[in-house]
């Protein structure tokens, strides 16, 4: 590969890395500022441009009128996301397996139509269903609860799980299922004993997407929760609209995105093994 392309490539990678990392670095520095550090314009390096302070961070862990509680929303976000992701992944994987191995027919509706039905749910913008969901949850007394949000999130995440796993199962030869059945497994047994253990790459990808879209949802949490259940995205938006200092906001933001950044590390490990290429298509 010649020099020109090489330099171009290096510059490009360097430039993009800078672009990617910039907001995080900015938030990091800002989280250590206080009122003096901001008033005269943008500042960057602690101790050089300004005097650092831990106000931003400590305020997150104090409750009461002066503090911003981050622990509560963190736990609520984690609970809702994990429960909804696990359930969606379980149901979605079963459905995807069924669609890839068996023939279903209801009138003129066939496998392909059913798959399309699942996947097309993603086209629906949250706004379309927000108000009806509100009324529905109100009826069953699930507004402002983790239970209510989980129900709604399942509708959001199930299509994703089906999408990824249908593609994945298409790549596993049916002969493997047949061999399991010949060896004494029922069709359901074949799935759990043979196919599932060989589906880890697909499950990782599907699970990752479920976690991402679950943790990062704002709109439904915003419409359907108020005081009892507070998720991270909703908390930060209400902090943003009330008079919250930049340093607290930045610290809050960094803690909010930290968990999934760790997921990125795990995903990269799978990617470099090449095992994911069968799962993503």
């Amino acid at each position, binding site marked *: *590969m010649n020099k020109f392309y090489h330099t171009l*490539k290096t510059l*490009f*990678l360097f430039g*993009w*890395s800078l672009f*990617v*990392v910039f*907001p995080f670095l*900015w*938030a990091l520095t800002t989280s250590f500022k206080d009122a003096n550090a*901001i008033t005269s314009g*943008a500042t960057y390096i602690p101790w050089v441009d300004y005097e650092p302070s831990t106000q931003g961070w400590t305020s997150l862990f104090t409750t009461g009128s002066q503090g911003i509680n981050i622990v509560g929303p963190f736990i609520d976000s984690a609970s809702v996301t994990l429960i909804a992701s696990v359930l969606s992944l379980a*149901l*979605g994987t*079963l*459905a995807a397996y*069924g*669609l890839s191995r068996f023939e279903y027919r209801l009138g003129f509706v066939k496998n392909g139509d*059913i798959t399309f039905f699942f996947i*097309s*749910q*993603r*086209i629906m*913008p*949250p*706004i*379309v*269903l*927000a*108000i*009806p969901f509100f009324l*529905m949850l109100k009826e069953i007394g699930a507004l402002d609860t983790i239970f209510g949000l989980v*129900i709604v999130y399942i*509708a959001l995440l*199930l*299509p994703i799980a089906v999408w990824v796993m249908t593609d994945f199962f298409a790549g596993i030869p049916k002969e493997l299922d047949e061999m399991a059945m010949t060896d004494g497994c*029922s*069709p*359901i047994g074949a799935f759990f004993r043979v196919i599932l253990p060989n589906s880890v790459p697909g499950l990782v990808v599907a699970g990752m997407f479920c976690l991402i879209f679950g*943790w*990062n949802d*704002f*709109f439904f949490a915003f*419409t359907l929760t108020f005081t009892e259940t507070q998720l991270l995205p909703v908390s*930060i*938006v209400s902090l*943003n609209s009330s008079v919250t200092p930049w340093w607290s906001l*930045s610290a809050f*933001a960094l803690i909010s*995105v930290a968990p*999934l950044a760790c*997921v990125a590390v795990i*995903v*990269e490990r799978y*990617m470099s093994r*090449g095992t994911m*290429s069968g799962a*993503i*298509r």
Partner: protein
Amino acid sequence: MLSSKHFFLLPALLTLIAIILFPLLFTIRVSFSSWDVFQSGLDFIGGKNYGRVFEDERFWQSLGRLSLLSLISVSLQYTLGFALALSVWKQVRGGRFLRVIFLIPMMTTPVVMSVIWRTVFHESLGPANDILSMFGIGAVPWLSSATGAFISVLIVEVWQWTPFMFLLLLAGLVSLPREPYLAAAIDGASTWRTFWQVTFPLMAPITIGALIIRLIEASKIMDTVYVLTSGGPGTATETSSYYIYIRGLRDFQIGYSAALSLVYLVIMIVSLTVIAKLLLRILVGKVG
């Protein structure tokens, strides 16, 4: 007569239908009423709401804005994502580290990042204008002008979602067969030609999938706009989702927003299907 095949499909299918059936039916019914939350019952006003939708300038403008935003941002995401994937495809120094870094933006919460971006684009206290001034460029009205706001949203979207394209395209590149490249090398093809004649055609199926998925998700854009610009200044960054939200959850014109939602949904399904078929024809037609 239930058999094992039902065991697999029915739980998911019934769950999904149970959860969305009422909301869907309700939305349809309320779109034919003028309900605004304060009344106790649902009246019936026929297709009046739909008539209003078709004459609603603001709605159609929002649709245009949304299309422009989606098309530009997804194209940029695709091009950059592809370039990134190609760059780290073969062995690169620090490749693993780079790959992790490149993935992170897509894992972050859009509203949370938008809160940060808002401070970045702050016209007097934020680093964006500060850095520009170091290069002698004057302050850009990031959030206070129509074009500036549009571009800000674009930047945030590209930052956030290019990793998605990167992930999909890299996974695709990694699983490409080697033979065509050996053949191209033997034929002495240049890097540029190898890309267009070998890589790009082989990646056609993944390209289509990635573009469609991103277009679907991009069309729903709401969170970023809500925090970064609140649809403004004025209506400069008001996307369809945001407009429907205003009518529904701010003005409480539930009936009308339901009609808007359904019209919007139909338009989305139709246009996305058309785009999908078009992409299939263009890219697959060119290849084989």
